């Protein structure tokens, strides 16, 4: 088997389309996972059983079923009784939702790691609940959660090709389609390298952020 740069060149336009889809899925998926995970984590600490219980049930369910099944469900089943969304939108929501159940656990551990004395000091100063969370607890929890959250971003990047199964062609999806059409394999190699090129700097960035936050 030989390596043909011409094939690589032919693949480039579709490669960039795929990269764009992958980065979109990663960026928006991460935002959803980070924000929604915090919502889950806070809801799981609610004193109201009717808030806590459904959230625990839903997050456990999502965490213990495959992402692929969730993507199929969102794409093929949900439109029967709910909104119909484009493959990319569905894929992004699926990734974000799935990973939000993991980030929720990270937040939970981070919040639990804040010493109880911090809550007591906030009570002693009569800080409101909202103020206690925003000014005291979350800023301290954030430092503990950045490294594990970063790991999930990298994991999400590596899971992002799954959205191709519902028709949102990320870079691997594009490569596979291209390879099938042209009976070549160069595109797959290009994409493999591209994953490293995205993931490794991301890891370095997370580590740098970690060093900055841990004071």
């Amino acid at each position, binding site marked *: 088997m030989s390596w043909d740069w011409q094939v690589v060149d032919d693949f480039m336009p579709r490669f960039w389309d795929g990269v764009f889809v992958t980065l979109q899925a990663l960026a928006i998926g991460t935002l959803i996972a980070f924000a929604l995970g915090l919502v889950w984590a806070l809801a799981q600490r609610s004193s109201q059983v009717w808030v806590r219980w459904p959230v625990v049930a839903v997050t456990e369910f999502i965490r213990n079923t495959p992402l692929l099944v969730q993507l199929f469900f969102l794409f093929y089943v949900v439109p029967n009784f709910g909104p119909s969304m484009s493959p990319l939108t569905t894929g992004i929501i699926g990734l974000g939702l799935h990973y939000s159940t993991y980030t929720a656990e990270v937040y939970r551990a981070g919040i639990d790691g804040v010493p109880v004395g911090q809550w007591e000091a906030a009570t*002693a100063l*009569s800080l409101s609940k909202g103020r206690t969370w925003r000014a005291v607890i979350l800023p*301290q929890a954030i430092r503990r959660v950045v490294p594990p959250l970063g790991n999930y971003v990298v994991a999400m990047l590596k899971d992002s090709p799954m959205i191709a199964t519902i028709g949102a062609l990320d870079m691997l999806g594009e490569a596979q389609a291209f390879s099938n059409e042209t009976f070549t394999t160069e595109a797959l190699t290009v994409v493999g390298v591209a994953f490293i090129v995205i993931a490794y700097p991301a890891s370095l960035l997370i580590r740098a952020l970690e060093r900055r936050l841990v*004071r």
Partner: protein
Amino acid sequence: MSADTPLQNDHDGNENPPVDGSELIRFDKVTKRFGSNVVLDELDFSVASGKHVTLIGPSGSGKTTILRLLMTLLKADEGTIKVNGDYLTHEEKNGKLVPAGEKHVREVRKNIGMVFQQFNLFPNMKVLRNITEAPVTVLGLSKDEADQRARELLDMVGLGDKADAYPTQLSGGQQQRVAIARALAMRPQVLLLDEVTSALDPELVAGVLDVLRDIAHTTDITMLCVTHEMNFARDISDQVLMFDSGRVLESGTPEKIFGDPEHDRTREFLSAVL
């Protein structure tokens, strides 16, 4: 450190001016259990406004529990607590006592400040903001006003140059002095001191106690203090309460309790700690 320090309660502007000598805190048949362990057993006790009261007794006798109940960090199983004549965790509705809502509790609790054994400064905030956070967001002071008051308090505790430091950059003694300033910034009527020197290296204890002595002698703030520093207790207290097994075994002036206690149990305890 002068007598006209910023931590004097401005009685003129206060909605609930404490009449000197009036009853500021009252425990009525307060019982607190942890599992089957009865820590406080139908405790009755009161503190008059402006007094400095020290609670002594063997560990596990319920001293710290009293402070934590007052700060609403714990909930009494039975009985009521009044601060300034208001129920702390109860409200009267149609002539009946019911558990109070969060708003009521916060309103009554604002009169109480606490300094903890482990300081509990907020490590994510600089020293100045540790002190101004609650005055700004709870009392509604302007930032400038809160800053100015915080700086005065920092001067008073001898840390005027540490406003921009983070708590972790300070020694334990310095952190505790910031914690004292933070509690005083809320202008509480009563200051709870929970073994505030127990976590400090021996050479740092004196600095913290000096600050507290100064506050005790130059202000009219009420103090309720749990300590193992008997000399300090003797210095600042108007009244000493000896606790044993969740009850007040005896109470009196420091001269009486330290000099001529009535109970053998008190004598034993004092000879063990002095």
